[in-house]
């Protein structure tokens, strides 16, 4: 499916969602409490078959919102789609897609660890890269490097 066809198909499939056409990869904006449902549809729709989640990234947009960006790819049709979820920083709850694409498990743990997005329904939402007792989310734009970790001075 070329980009134009895909765009039309998405518009027909999700009439309520906001669609964007960035250069050659289409992009859809999904509300945080609908991403699981939309994810399942994107994965299983016969014309889309976006069965592989290439990358899931948490982003701090530095304007009071956090985002989660999903880069999807279809192994069969060899086309791509970007999906974005934007949530306010005070209430960063996003539905998990861990059971839609299993690879999202670790990616979501990473986004939780570094950005602080909370994935509702994730079965094992622990920190993954930082120590389990680390405080704060280092990739937030307003993050301050702590002076002490477990009572030890952090040389920085």
């Amino acid at each position, binding site marked *: 499916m070329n980009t134009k066809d895909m765009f039309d198909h998405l518009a027909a499939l999700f009439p309520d969602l906001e669609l964007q056409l*960035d250069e050659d*990869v289409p992009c859809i904006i999904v509300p945080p409490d609908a991403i699981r449902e939309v994810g399942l549809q994107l994965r299983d729709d016969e014309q889309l078959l976006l*069965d*592989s*989640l*290439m*990358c899931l*990234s948490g*982003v*701090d947009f*530095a304007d009071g919102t956090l985002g989660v*960006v999903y*880069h999807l790819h279809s*192994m069969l049709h*060899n086309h791509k789609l*970007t999906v974005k979820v934007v949530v306010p920083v005070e209430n960063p709850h996003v539905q998990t897609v861990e059971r839609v*694409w*299993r*690879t999202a*498990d*670790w*990616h979501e743990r990473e986004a939780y660890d*570094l950005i602080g997005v909370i994935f509702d329904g994730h079965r094992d939402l622990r*920190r*993954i*890269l*930082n*120590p389990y007792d680390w405080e704060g989310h*280092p*990739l937030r734009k307003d993050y301050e490097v702590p002076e002490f970790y477990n009572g030890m001075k952090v040389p920085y």
Partner: protein
Amino acid sequence: MSQTLEALQEDIAAGRLKTDELVLNMGPQHPSTHGVLRLELVLDGEAVVKVIPHLGYLHRCFEKHAEAMTYPQVIPYTDRMDYLAAMNNNHGYALAIERLMGIELPERVEYIRVIMAELQRIASHLVAIGTFGMDIGAFTPFLYCFRDREYILDIFERTCGARLLYNYMWVGGLSHDVHDGFEKDVRDFIKRFRPTIKEVNDLLNYNKIFIERTANIGVLPVDVAVSYGCSGPMLRGSGVDFDLRRDDPYSIYDRFDWQVCVGKGEAGTVGDCWDRHMVRVWEMEQSCNIIEQALETFPPGDITEAIPKRIRPPKGEIYTRVENPRGELGYYVISDGSANPFRVKARGPSFVNLSVIDEISRGHLIADIVAILGSIDIVLGEIDR
């Protein structure tokens, strides 16, 4: 209280005798975890019930560093992620920024990049093959592999002065042109290297003990591989004919004639440890083919002409992926128009490939975990970033 084994088993089945699962920590200091990785193994006797990996012992927060640097300053940090394939890491990052800025590269730069990336792929696979053999207990092939890898590192050293961490591929070009006699060095290497593949085949890959230890172990079915986002030799070992160099073309790979290697289950089941291992062996031959063809038509020219004086990509974002020796290496870069990237996310292949280990290890013995981990071919520098 003397009881027979049958009586004991009967007691266990009836719930009169309690048995318990045993938790064993493998790592962080364990030679077969290839770095500082801790695997928490939940065991039933010697059989593995669950594997829980604990990462982060090497975490440096590459992504946080990247936000504080200018675009070219990030390149040395990409070297230090997958330190066995630094050229490929440079390549992916440079490509992302070039696409964001819309830079066209001179022919010669593209050729040098492909040759370097393929040499690096051979070097990286040699480490993977050698250490995998060593994990299983075969020491000699390791020495053969490292001997030949040294020749490649010598070529890199002559060109850019570094053996492991190169900072060689810059946005829009390269740090240096290749050294005098580069083409002869590479041709000599390929000539010397091709017989090594046969030697390793004879010594290790078709050795009965090696096959016994790796065939039918850690079988990764296609649907699981795709759902877990596995890529590179992991995915191709499961029989999926997918290679980013061909299916999401970048650089000039479409000009060369080469094959994508997939596992066929020759020794056991499709997608077992042996298949993943053999995909790497076959890929080295294909890399040799690509390098030879690139040398045939290696053009002269200036390598610095496309390097921009000011690197400030326009506002926007891009996700670019390249085929690293371990699989899909993606960079998601957001630019806000300033000299520093707003956000850089690196999607490392080892990180994603490792996440499947729990799924493919269940029911195997502890000794098989060593084989499975070796066949995934992880680099902790890139998992922890």
